[in-house]
């Protein structure tokens, strides 16, 4: 009986287990192994070089630039997005009419495909015929070249990304706000506390764990960022100003075909994301986020 149960268990685990082993676990280790090779498809070489790829990475200005750009993206998106989404979530949580209507609209960009909306933003950001420059001209702000300008390309990608993911943060904040016991607010109102005081002494401390959660999840997602960069700024933007780390990985592997070097980059991505996810699991235990 016991034996039969064990066999059944392994049969049930088999389909998922095989896929996870073959396409997720094995490739991870294989990537580490490949990072030790000078493997260039175009030059048709595959030679063991030990840790040399990592030494090259250390002195590769473009690699550091891509790492810097990734942090720039993270710092540009995360605090702004958290502040805006918290304000919207608090508004939505204040017993208003049409809650589901507003929620639907704020969530809309989240469910649409990044590729399709990026096409719209390409039009919006167009230096000559884009609506953004027109709207700014009403306020006497001089037109910019946005995605074609090394200074403005990244802020443009950041703005679009905030718009795209705002709804996700709003939903998470709403769940957090709704879990704050009503008695706290009632007690505060009886004591005659003002709205700002209620926010400062009740809402903010109790929502802080959610803020940290969103910050960490967004930081992890920054290291996955690729699609909007690829769609909005082909070739990593003017002067590589939007080349984030996953883009640099993609470029080395599938444009320059330097597979060994690209694997070394992927190991760096792995180490960063793995550590961040470990922190997330340490802090929130089994409450696990599904990355996109």
């Amino acid at each position, binding site marked *: 009986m016991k034996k039969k149960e064990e066999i059944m*268990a392994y049969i049930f685990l088999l389909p998922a287990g095989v896929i996870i082993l073959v396409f997720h676990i094995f490739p*991870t280790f294989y990537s580490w192994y*490949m990072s030790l090779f000078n493997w260039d498809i175009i030059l048709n070489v595959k030679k063991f070089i030990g840790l040399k790829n990592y030494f090259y990475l250390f002195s590769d200005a473009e690699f550091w630039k891509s790492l810097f750009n990734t942090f720039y993206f993270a710092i540009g998106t995360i605090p702004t997005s958290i502040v805006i989404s918290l304000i*919207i979530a608090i508004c939505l949580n204040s017993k208003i009419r049409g809650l589901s209507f507003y929620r639907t609209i704020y969530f809309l*960009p989240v469910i649409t495909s990044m590729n*399709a909306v990026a*096409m*719209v933003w390409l039009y919006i950001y167009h230096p000559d015929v884009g609506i953004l420059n027109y709207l700014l001209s009403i306020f006497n702000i001089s037109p910019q070249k946005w995605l074609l300008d090394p200074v403005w390309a990244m802020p443009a990608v950041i703005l679009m990304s905030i718009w795209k993911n705002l709804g996700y943060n709003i939903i998470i904040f709403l769940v957090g706000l709704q879990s704050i016991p009503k008695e706290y607010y009632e007690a505060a109102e009886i004591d005659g506390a003002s709205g700002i005081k209620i926010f400062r002494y009740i809402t903010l401390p109790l929502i802080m764990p959610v803020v940290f959660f969103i910050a960490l999840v967004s930081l992890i997602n920054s290291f996955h960022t690729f*699609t909007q960069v690829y769609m909005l700024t082909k070739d990593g933007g003017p002067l590589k100003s939007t080349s984030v780390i996953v883009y640099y990985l993609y470029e080395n592997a599938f444009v320059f075909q330097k597979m060994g070097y690209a694997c070394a980059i992927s190991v760096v991505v792995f180490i960063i994301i793995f550590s961040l996810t470990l922190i997330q699991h340490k802090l929130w235990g089994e409450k696990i986020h599904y990355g996109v």
Partner: protein
Amino acid sequence: MKKFLIYFILTVGAILMMGPFLWMVISSFKSQSEVLMMPPKWIPSTLNFKNYSEAWTSAPFARYFLNSIFVTIANTILSVITSALAGYAFAIFRFKGKDLLFLLFLGTMMIPMEVTLIPNYFILKNLGWLDTFFALIVPWSASVFGIFLMRQFFKSLPKELFESASIDGCTHWQILWKIVFPISKPVFISVGLFSMIGSWNAFLWPLIMTSSEAMRTIPVGLSTFTSEFGTRFHLMMAAATFTTVPIIIVYLFAQKYFVEGIATGGMK
């Protein structure tokens, strides 16, 4: 006064969120010269429906849609099945190495897809699967997150349910599909929905694993369309509209599940 401020913030925010979508739909009906006008024309002089037919035929969008629909359905069904089976095994069965194996599965959630990209390219190449549906479907037919959700849900079901069914002579297959499945619809929908969204929107994977036009999914098709028609904005907006609107309609009907799914998936 306070209420007024709240509605003001929410409405301004909603307009900003909707803005790009409205602009997309409006511009999709403009003529080629109207989309290039400055100051912009707010309302097109005539509704140019032919933008849609022109965009639809300037790239094989029918094929892209079929590919995306097929891959998404296959991925969703397969990953729900494999997740239910594995989740059931971890929740109900007792077997050697269970905790260790579960930990190993959970550990793979920390593996970013990007690190497996290059080895997987060569694995699929050696299997002869590059540029086939196998490359798009098989590797994503299991989801650790799905297994985790299923296990949590099955564990919360009363033990007596399984025991009495066992005594009645039901096999585990029968218990899973005839007893557990009907009362576990929410978790099946959650797992299915996550797989569906992930599969429908996947970009980097199909971009690399497919090369022929006939194998492109919608996101990849839109990206090549953008490089070819980048400045013909009336066609760009038409393509963006007809790929986005079906999703918006599905969302409006199933939004309860979307929002709940995100909420439970993000933070329990």
